[in-house]
């Protein structure tokens, strides 16, 4: 009995000692800057969680091998502590607490998805931990007055308004009739708000405004309405499920619509899963490898894509590219702050104004990146049935001409 007690107290003393010692010097250990990240490695976001992690890892390796981060005349290397948030917002918030208060992390990288970023942001804000995130685009993240949240990506409401503007332009400047179907989650609803804004700006009318359930796998009803009412543009956003369901049912039901605009096409591997049926779909993307932005670490989009493919064996989706960019932003901020003081780093982040292979980065007071427009690509297939995504808007980056209107199914 007595022996048990002694062992117990010895073990608990060890545990306490260990945990405090970790906490006391975890942020910058020796020549390492330790960043924390809760990422969805399991659960429903795990595919995109892995894309995010690969993007982070790729940038860490690249920055470390190219000289690291220079602060106060000393060279540091990046290291990341990862935890699996199981795609669960509550778990993500707990892990953020743990990273900060137990592991002593003083700088954070974002998780995947707007929902999880929303769960973590209050925690990082409470502790004054600067967080650069690359995968939370919901507008509501940037209206809460967060001081320590920085997003390298364009907010969700800008995803598809280019499509509406393009449609109006192609209609000779006259307003268009819009049909839209959006999933009921923070991100898709923000995309919807962007469309509403664009419609108001251009005087366009929304004739179908459907909300899709989370368990969505059938949107035949929406498409029947589209068939009857013949809108000029159909906009769909419901993550990968939405994109896949829409293309399948549009093809099966032979729905003719002059323009089809969507999100999450490359995450859904649209052209791979649907082949020629996905042709002409117009997709919003944060990044495309053919863009000509440049930096010293990854050179440009094409080189990044080639290097990424070599390391991970697949073409990088934009989720990976933006995650890599987050590390470049941190490196730049540390060097400009020339310190590891959280406040100084935060101020340096706020003053960021740089170009990366992923795009220009400059943060608005709310934390969103205002210097990088969204691009639209269109799925284009050749006669043999192999499909490619080609950037069609904005015109500055376009590598192909937008095909409009989409040919009718009877003529394909």
């Amino acid at each position: 009995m007595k022996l048990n007690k002694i062992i117990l107290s010895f073990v608990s003393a060890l545990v306490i000692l260990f945990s405090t010692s970790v906490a006391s010097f975890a942020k910058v250990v020796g020549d390492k800057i330790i960043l924390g990240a809760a990422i969805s490695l399991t659960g429903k976001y795990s595919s995109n969680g892995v894309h995010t992690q690969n993007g982070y890892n790729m940038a860490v390796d690249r920055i470390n091998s190219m000289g690291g981060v220079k602060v106060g005349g000393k060279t540091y290397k990046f290291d990341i502590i990862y935890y699996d948030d199981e795609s669960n917002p509550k778990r993500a918030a707990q892990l953020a607490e743990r990273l900060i208060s137990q592991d002593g992390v003083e700088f954070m990288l974002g998780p995947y998805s707007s929902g999880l970023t929303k769960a973590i942001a209050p925690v990082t804000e409470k502790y004054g931990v600067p967080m650069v995130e690359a995968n939370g685009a919901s507008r509501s993240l940037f209206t809460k007055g967060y001081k320590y949240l920085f997003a390298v990506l364009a907010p969700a409401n800008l995803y598809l308004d280019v499509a509406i503007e393009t449609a109006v332009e192609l209609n000779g400047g006259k307003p268009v009739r819009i049909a839209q179907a959006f999933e009921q989650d923070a991100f898709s609803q923000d995309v919807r708000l962007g469309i509403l804004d664009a419609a108001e700006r251009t005087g366009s009318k929304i004739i179908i405004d459907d909300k899709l359930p989370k368990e969505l796998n059938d949107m035949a009803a929406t498409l029947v309405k589209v068939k009857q009412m013949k809108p000029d543009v159909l906009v769909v956003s419901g993550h990968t499920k939405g994109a896949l369901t829409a293309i399948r049912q549009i093809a099966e039901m032979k729905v003719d619509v002059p323009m089809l605009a969507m999100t999450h096409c490359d995450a859904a591997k649209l052209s791979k899963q649907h082949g020629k049926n996905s042709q002409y779909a117009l997709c919003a993307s944060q990044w495309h490898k053919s863009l000509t932005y440049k930096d010293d670490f990854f050179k440009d989009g094409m080189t990044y894509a080639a290097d990424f493919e070599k390391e991970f064996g697949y073409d990088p989706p934009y989720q990976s590219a933006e995650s890599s960019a987050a590390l470049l932003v941190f490196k730049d901020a540390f060097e400009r702050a020339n310190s590891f003081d959280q406040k100084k780093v935060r101020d340096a982040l706020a003053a960021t104004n740089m170009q990366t292979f992923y795009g220009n980065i400059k943060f608005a007071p709310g934390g969103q990146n205002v210097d990088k427009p969204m691009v639209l690509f269109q799925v284009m297939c050749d006669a043999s049935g192999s499909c490619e995504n080609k950037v069609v808007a904005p015109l500055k980056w376009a590598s192909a001409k937008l095909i409009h209107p989409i040919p009718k199914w009877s003529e394909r």
Partner: protein
Amino acid sequence: MDFLVFQYPMITVQACLDGILLGVLFALIAYGMALQWGVMNIINIAQGDLVILGGYIAYFMYLYGIHPAWGVIVAPVIMYFVGIAIYKLVINKVVDRDLFISILATFGISILFMQLMNFAFGADVVLANSGYGTTMLFDSNVVLPNSKIFSAFISILFAVCLVIYMKKSKLGRAIRATAQNARAAKILGVDTEKVYAATFGINAALCGVAGALISITFTIHPYMGLPYTIRSFMIVIVAGLGNLPGVAMSGMGLGVFEEFADYILGTEFRIGSVFLLLVLILVYRRFKLSRKREYLK
């Protein structure tokens, strides 16, 4: 609220046809549930997850270049053994306990299946392309994807085969006898343990067929099982146990109801309306039962 469905009469036709085709598929899943509920008194929360697993079998056949329609033959065979395995590992330990224990146990199986499928197949939404084309009716105002027609046809085929099997075969008779009175069946020499295992296997096989059809018609994802459980639960509640025509009718009714809810209330209320209907039916049933009891007094 949207009354498009009344402005364009063709939408009504479309909604009814879509609903019926969908409902037949639901009815197949529900029939499996009714069967094992009736025989073993177990409400299988993992029903939808078995469906999704069946879908993945068809999907993997598709990936390896086999037409996914063959999944309706391969998936039930594999799923039958999966069902037997689940029975031997878990269900046989809860089969005589009260309903609550079995709900908990199958709920656990459901969570386990979701996580395992996520682990094994990834969290991507996937589908299998059948390339079946489309049927156009009424001057192409009503469109029916042939994949939906195919899945309804296969569902009916399996349901009919099963009914005949239950009526004619020895095992079918044993299953029906066990459902009526397990103890009496045991006394008369029926190996109820075997009957239970077979019933659970048949249920899983039906789920496998339905899953293969869903992978051809819709999309599959490790976490998409629950709506199928709820729907089949509801169909069974409306139809009652052991009432196959009832299951078929209430399946189609639910399909049509869903489509109309979608058109009139909006897509966001589609699944919500199913839940609402479930509550209403449960309240109504309870009300009816309580009246009966009073009468008996």
